[in-house]
């Protein structure tokens, strides 16, 4: 590889100041805040337009250089750290909110728009609308979130965030630009169909199928009142019944569950937070009564949670990154396991066992996705970034949890390379074959984030 020439070419495409291979920039882009080991990067480039992305892709194809698109870089599982070197495309200069359609309730945006940016924009200009954003920090991008089948706010009510994608504009490995969803036929980006649904090819494929340069995501009406109803439960076996009953009531916006040893009063309990919404405080009060009754009926009890805790969880987004400092170490990573409801009690039990085995205080949580169609289970492991052994310990815990997830019939979400390999191992061979064939057809030179969703040794 003629490094100097490629840098020059990249600088010609995006401008001198937005392509780099300085050791300092490469150092930052060779790692993420999770537990993955650093991996080398050759260039970082920040395109501003779809045309620039096309030119970068064409150059990469000619030179056979891997391309890794990056949003906020906050998956924690190293998805934006190149596996085989190459060019990281930091997409955050493509940050335009192109259209807010109030009637069809969608936002057409560029891939660098952060969740914080869209949230603030709607709060200011369309206060009756809200975006579906993850529990990640506000610097996470909307695109990054939906493209990994993200979840978070509004997931209980409307499903996972990947399901909220109406359409995409994608630069393929060939350099061609393709439109997917209703925008392929109409100038409205209002729906995913009704045409053969190829949007899914680009979800959870971690940049191996193409580089998204525009997307339309659903946005939602914002209720006037919102409150958290907190509860505790001793026996995790009661979780499925409680959740089934809670989700039968149709005013529930979100449901979060968790188990942690600190503060002391939480130890030994499953806590749950049910977000209710309404038109008035009276409306909320009535719903609160119904919920309390539902709690009692299902082996749980309502508890007035400390205001500090409520404030933390009512804020959008939740300061989930706080977990990084649980052990004053600056890092955490979790297995986000998509699980069937029936295996959740066991997941809590065995997840806590894994935590204790690795000497990490159990920090387990879960979110409902679309009533009880799916539960995202978080097995979180904090670590000390300054201690390589402690980071290895966290990686070991993550690996064991990936095995547990698959054993329980779940699937690790946005998994690191090891998790991807485990999933592929268990995957229906013909599904896998179809996936690899499509990928080979779209990307014959294998330049799109190679090493991800791969059975080859890295």
């Amino acid at each position: 590889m003629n490094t100097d020439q490629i840098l020059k070419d990249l600088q010609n495409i995006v401008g001198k100041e937005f392509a780099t291979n300085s050791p300092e920039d490469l150092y930052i882009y060779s790692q993420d805040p999770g537990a993955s080991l650093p991996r080398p990067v050759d260039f970082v480039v920040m395109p501003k337009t779809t045309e620039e992305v096309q030119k970068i892709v064409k150059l990469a194809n000619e030179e056979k250089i891997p391309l890794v698109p990056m949003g906020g870089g906050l998956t924690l599982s190293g998805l934006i750290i190149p596996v085989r070197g190459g060019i990281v495309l930091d997409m955050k200069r493509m940050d335009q909110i192109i259209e807010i359609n109030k009637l069809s309730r969608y936002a057409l945006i560029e891939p660098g728009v952060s969740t914080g940016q869209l949230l603030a924009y709607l709060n200011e200009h369309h206060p009756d609308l809200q975006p579906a954003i993850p529990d990640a920090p506000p610097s996470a991008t909307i695109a990054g979130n939906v493209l990994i089948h993200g979840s978070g706010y509004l997931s209980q009510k409307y499903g996972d965030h990947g399901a909220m994608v109406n359409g995409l504009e994608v630069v393929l490995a060939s350099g061609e630009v393709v439109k997917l969803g209703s925008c392929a036929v109409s100038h409205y980006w209002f729906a995913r169909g009704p045409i053969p649904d190829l949007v899914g090819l680009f979800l959870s494929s971690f940049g191996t199928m193409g580089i998204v340069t525009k997307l339309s995501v659903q946005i939602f009406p914002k209720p006037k009142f919102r409150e958290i109803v907190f509860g505790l439960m001793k026996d995790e076996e009661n979780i499925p019944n409680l959740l089934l009953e809670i989700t039968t009531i149709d005013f529930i916006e979100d449901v979060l569950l968790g188990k942690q040893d600190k503060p002391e009063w939480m130890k030994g309990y499953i806590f749950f937070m049910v977000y209710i919404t309404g038109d008035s405080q009276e409306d909320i009060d009535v719903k609160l009564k119904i919920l309390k009754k539902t709690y009692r009926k299902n082996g749980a009890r309502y508890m007035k949670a400390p205001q500090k805790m409520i404030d933390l969880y009512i804020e959008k987004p939740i300061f989930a990154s706080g977990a990084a400092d649980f052990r004053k170490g600056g890092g955490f990573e979790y297995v986000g396991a998509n699980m069937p409801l029936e295996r959740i009690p066991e997941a809590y039990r065995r997840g806590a066992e894994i935590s204790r085995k690795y000497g990490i205080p159990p920090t387990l949580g879960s979110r409902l996705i679309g009533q009880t169609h799916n539960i995202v289970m978080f097995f979180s492991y904090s670590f000390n970034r300054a201690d390589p052994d402690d980071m290895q310990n966290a990686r070991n815990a993550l690996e064991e949890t990936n095995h547990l997830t698959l054993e329980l019939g779940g699937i690790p979400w946005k998994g690191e390379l090891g998790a991807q390999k485990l999933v592929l191992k268990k995957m229906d061979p013909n599904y896998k074959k179809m996936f690899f064939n499509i990928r080979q057809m779209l990307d014959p030179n294998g330049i799109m984030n190679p090493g991800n969703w791969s059975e080859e040794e890295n």
Partner: protein
Amino acid sequence: MALDDIKHIIHRCFRCGYCKFTHSYSEFNCPSYNKYRFETYSAGGRMWLIFGLMNNELQWSDNLANILYACSTCGNCVENCRFVKFNEFWVDIIEAARAEAVKNGFCPDKQKNLLERTTNPEMFNPYAEPNSDNEELKKEYNLPDKAEWVYFIGCTSNYRQKNLRDSTLRFLKKAKIDFTLIDEHCCCSPIIRTGQISPVKDFMNYNVEKIKEAGATKVITSCAGCYRTLKNDFEKFGVEYDFELYHTSELVKKLLDEDKLKFTSSYDKTVTYHDPCHLGRHSGIYKIPREVYKKIPGINFVEMKRNRENAYCCGAGGGVKIGYPDWSVEISKERLEEAKETGATVVSSTCPFCRTNLSDANDKFDMGFEVIDLIEILDKLDIEIINNELKK
């Protein structure tokens, strides 16, 4: 603070990115991230680089020094970082890393000038001007050698923004404050911010001694940079003093609150206030200047979208003005564009650095504002002083 002192903190930055934003996430509020856009230039990126340096995963280089110096140390990262147990240290860490750059011979040349000029016995200021012992000013304003108050002018007002200095002198006289001037040397803000800390303690001790010699128990400054340095940095460098410290806006507010000062003419303009980082985020003073503006008869006081803790830096701080003069003025241009949205014709601040940089942008980009310090506005007003006991 030395880098060794932050070993227990530096790895705790998760690089989550809150530090880039305003409170509401409406904008990126970090000037250097806004310009460079690589993660490297966010506060988190810098913390990770410093961690890499301390681990020997990275070596000093001109580029690394440039990344560390291209930060206006405005404190937005401190304000927005959610890790409350240690977020107060981010700017101190940048300054400590710059001190390490200096030690290793990687202080950029332009910033080096600040130290050379400040330590030059003919100057004692970063502007390469012959040192003023302020005796001429004392004569001109008929000031005593000893007084209750010392007006610490600061180099920027004394050598560049002289109207700000003179307005302050006139105001203090009109307010019948018993004050004097000293043969001051630089407060050291510019060299502290750029990591050139070797002479700082001596300079601080010198100024404290001079204030003592003047018999003063109170010090007032019209410079937000001097104020922050005296308020925060003296203690960090282990230099103690027993005088009370006031920014001019604090004194004016006090006089107004005690009904000792009345404005008897009006200022019929639409004014917006730019919070200096030195006075705002670094010293926690937001309300006081606003209350003073709002007491001015005839004023139409309006706020910019980003204000108080969320204010956008003018771009002059942290050695950015001297190190990156063109970019520095572009940052001020962005601030003035925000001021345009308010309908204000006057952009006012309480800091000579902000005044300089905002004025430079105003002139360079023909923005059409009047850029003026609060004390300069007050200087234009007729005032009445009622039974001022402060004069003793």
